[in-house]
């Protein structure tokens, strides 16, 4: 097989192609003006979906039924508590990050202990936890909007060598996730569990430990994304995570990760996140209203999954 053909066999290539086509269409309409601005905005906004999506991807890889619905609530809680703790002081940035990570760990632990102890499906366990976490966020927030420390606000909204800083953070996290998934025994374990849990157990894989770590990882990534998003948008809002529930799942699926579990890939998350943002901005450029934009987004998700599903069926 030639290298080009092999490239087209990769599950993530389609999301990249789609993202590129949409980018091209938008740029042609605006006649090349604002190409740099569009690319930077796409990288910035995609970065948040990438961080959240990678966590969700690890969970979905664990197999059918595994999904984390507590992502939006975790983002909101981490954002509000961290900003409250930092209280606009630059010296408190590090404790703020630590608190966000601790919140992620606690939420992840709650998620998995419910799944394990009560033997309830992950979708319900994470849903119940998300209700509690959401309440905690409402309780701590109290409608106050605390500004992020100036250093952090500058960091999240500026660029290094023309690349948005949040995109660089997302890139570092992606490389780490890719390494975990492809080069470590842990990555092999989650794929094995996703393909068949009984078989993985027979093979002596520590199934419970692996699943626990995966849920912890997903929640921590969600809280980090919430922390960054709150700093980027100049304060935490109670509804700031809500769009990331559907987004995190959509990004994973469009990126070519098998929904049935056991097969995942990191580059696809990038392609899909960029694609999702670029679609919105393309429809904006064409001057379409919010309603049409939502409908188009939905139709695109469905057509992508129909194409991808057909492709996979053909290969096997």
């Amino acid at each position, binding site marked *: 097989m030639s290298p080009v053909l092999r490239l087209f066999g990769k599950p993530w290539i389609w999301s990249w192609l789609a993202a590129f086509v949409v980018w091209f269409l938008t740029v042609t309409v605006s006649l090349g003006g604002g190409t740099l601005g569009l690319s930077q905005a796409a990288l910035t906004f995609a970065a948040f979906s990438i961080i959240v999506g990678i966590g969700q991807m690890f969970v979905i890889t664990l197999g059918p*039924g595994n*999904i984390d*619905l507590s992502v939006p609530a975790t983002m909101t809680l981490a954002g509000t508590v961290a900003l409250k703790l930092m209280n606009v002081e630059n010296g408190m940035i590090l404790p703020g990050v630590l608190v966000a990570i601790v919140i992620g760990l606690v939420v992840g632990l709650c998620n998995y202990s*419910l799944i394990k102890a*009560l*033997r*309830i*499906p992950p*979708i*319900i366990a994470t*849903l*119940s*936890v*998300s*209700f*509690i*976490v*959401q*309440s*905690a966020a*409402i*309780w701590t927030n109290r409608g106050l909007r605390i500004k992020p420390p100036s250093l952090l606000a500058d960091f999240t909204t500026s660029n290094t060598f023309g690349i948005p800083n949040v995109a660089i953070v997302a890139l570092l996290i992606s490389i780490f996730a890719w390494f975990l998934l492809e080069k470590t025994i842990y990555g092999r374990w989650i794929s094995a569990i996703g393909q068949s849990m009984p078989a993985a157990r027979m093979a002596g894989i520590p199934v419970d430990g692996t699943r626990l770590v995966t849920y912890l990882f997903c929640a921590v990534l969600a809280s980090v994304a919430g922390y960054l998003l709150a700093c980027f948008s100049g304060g935490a809002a109670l509804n700031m995570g809500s769009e990331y529930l*559907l987004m995190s*799942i*959509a990004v994973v*699926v469009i990126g070519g990760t098998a*929904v*049935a579990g056991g097969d995942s890939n990191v580059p696809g998350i990038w392609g899909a996140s960029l694609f999702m943002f670029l679609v919105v901005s393309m429809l904006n450029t064409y001057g379409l*209203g*919010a*309603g*049409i*934009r*939502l*409908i*188009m*987004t*939905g*139709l*695109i*998700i*469905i057509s992508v*999954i*129909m194409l991808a*599903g*057909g492709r996979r*069926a053909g290969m096997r």
Partner: protein
Amino acid sequence: MTFRLSSDTMRLAIPALSLTLLLAAVFWLQPRAMSYVGLNLLFNLAVPIALATIAQMLVMAVNDLDLSMGTFVSFVACVTATFLRDAPVIGILILAGAIASYAAIGVVIHLRSLPSIVVTLGMSFVWGGLAVLLLPAPGGQSPDWVRWLMTVKPPLAPMAIVASVIIAVVAHLVVMRSSLGVLIRGVGGNQRSVERAGWSIVAARAAAYGLAGFFAVLAGVALVGLTTSADANIALRYTLLSIAGVILGGGEFIGGRVSPIGAVIGALTLTLAGSFLSFLRISPDWQIGAQGAILIIVLALRLMLNRLEKREKRR
């Protein structure tokens, strides 16, 4: 004496028990709720949630999951508050089209063997977009007959209770007693054996989705009857509430094991949980959280009873 409960009765006993306990607690905290008006106020908002829960249950009976329930009910609410009032014929045609597209989604999911979560996720954007197109800002008005239906005061029991009972009985007859219901649950239980027996799986799935669409339409209409106007985001939380209601009512994600009566009870329990907490004078901040806690407690209870049952069997 050997008095044995069938597993189906056990399945229903736990949700019924939790609802009774919660209701007793509410009455104990606030005896004035124990009246015609009090009960109506407690359960008013449960009617649309119960209908949406039945819809979700039908989808779950064929091992799928509908993530577009909330946006679909919002869309129906918008249609009800605009077209169904101003141009009833067009309104009814739109709603019939919506039910048909639900059935079509079922066919597409089956034919291409797609994950239902993703397809309905995509559809949730489509319904949301349509709702925004119809009502960019909150508004519209409920048709008079819908308003009348939801506020009518039948003798003996308040409307909310009567409606819940009717919903439970109708859903029970359709899902548990009709041959179509058996077929739908059979697809969830063992698709291959249903297929070998000569039934069309595509038709069964289309029927399950179409019925789900029908109940979801009823949920949207009922909701507008209560709120008198609509908004594109009016029912977004129904997606998660309906899933939680089915599970609380003893349903399961796979295997076609569902219980319509349990689902209605689950929806009532979720609604009541909110009132219970406000009677406890817990700050409204914790309302959602407490619903989550109640969900966890009921599921823990169910696990305990299941274990007891197993231990009995082993003896």
